[in-house]
């Protein structure tokens, strides 16, 4: 799943600089939570879905990528609606749908290297103040974004394996193996980074 993300391509969104995409996402995310017009939010959600599909990822693949969070959004909408807050549901659902598809479009069309470079450039002022090591902080942010889909996928696999064996799906039964896998993978990632000698440790605080 992870190799499908941040892949190369030539769509307009791929060619847009990462800084523009990240700034745009931040602005739209902020505006979306201020707007309280169901019609406007629904239009934005439709546009967001169109933007996500313009990346060439395909309808089926995109639906699979976002199935779990979209299921949660549907549940939230159903609860709001069930509580008699149809108006709230009409705002919450399109708002969250828009944000999920737009953020997915950004991660789909931006390579890991480009993402890290952009974060590093954005964090440079804080490095000049002596607050952080911009290169390492940017790498941490980028790794976190890249590994979310992988961990969601692993959670799904663990749950399916346990369901297949007829085990009850208790929270600890899901999280314990998931956390162990995450810790093991974190060590592998650290080794891979060290093997490539990146980024140089400047002995400053993260």
């Amino acid at each position, binding site marked *: 799943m992870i190799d499908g993300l941040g892949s190369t391509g030539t769509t307009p969104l791929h060619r847009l600089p990462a800084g523009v995409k*990240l700034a745009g*996402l*931040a*602005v*739209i*995310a*902020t505006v*979306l*939570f*201020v707007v309280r017009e169901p019609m406007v939010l629904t239009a934005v959600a439709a546009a967001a879905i169109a933007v996500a599909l313009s990346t060439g990822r395909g309808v089926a693949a995109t639906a699979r990528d976002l199935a*779990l*969070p979209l*299921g*949660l*959004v549907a*549940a*939230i909408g159903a*609860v709001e609606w*069930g509580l008699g807050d149809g108006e709230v549901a009409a705002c919450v659902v399109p708002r*969250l749908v828009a*944000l*999920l598809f737009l*953020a997915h479009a950004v991660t789909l069309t931006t390579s890991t290297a480009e993402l890290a470079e952009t974060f590093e450039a954005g964090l440079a002022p804080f490095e000049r103040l002596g607050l952080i090591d911009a290169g*390492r902080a940017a*790498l*941490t*942010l980028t*790794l*976190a*974004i890249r*590994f*979310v889909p*992988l*961990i*969601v996928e692993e*959670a*799904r696999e663990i749950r399916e394996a346990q369901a297949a064996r007829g085990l009850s*799906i*208790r*929270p*600890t039964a*899901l*999280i*314990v193996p*998931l*956390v*162990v896998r*995450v*810790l*093991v*993978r*974190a*060590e592998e*990632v*650290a080794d891979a*980074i*060290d093997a490539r000698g990146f980024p140089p*440790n400047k002995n400053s*605080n*993260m």
Partner: protein
Amino acid sequence: MTTRDLGFVALFAALIVALGLVPAVPLAGLPVPITLQSAGVMLAGLLLGPKRGTAAVAVVIALVGLGFPVLSGGRGGLAVWVGPTAGFLFGWLAAAFVAGTVAMRLDTEAHAPGVRLAGLIGGAILGGIVVLYAFGIAWLTFGAGFAFPKAFVGSMTFLPGDIAKALIAAFVTAQVRRAFRLERK
């Protein structure tokens, strides 16, 4: 911070995000979809220790500000940073730090198994509930202008779920540490 620490911080931040995106266990009789995201925050402190646990939470908060839908149910954006519930978001930093500090003191070889488990549960509750709610309710009252009783009572509706999550975080920590040796820092 070593590269290994960087890996733990980044992947634990990703785990906290993932736990907010995966619809968690349907609890009988509870209509609200529950995620284990706040249990992930307590886990970060309990497992990684105060410094790295707080760093993992800081990464998640940064991703929220960048507009990524990383909070439970897909919320994100700078609006969350300044919204009425911002105290609960930034309070996560203190929650992970306090949980990690308590765990580092009490969950050691020097203590009896009972003390160790009590330390994990106590750390999760002190950080993830007492300290977190103090931040959350303070911001609801002074930042968002809710009357204190309303802010307090409203927050208390989350208490049963959060107690369950603190217990989950503590038991998961004890079990994971049997499978994976990890020093806290």
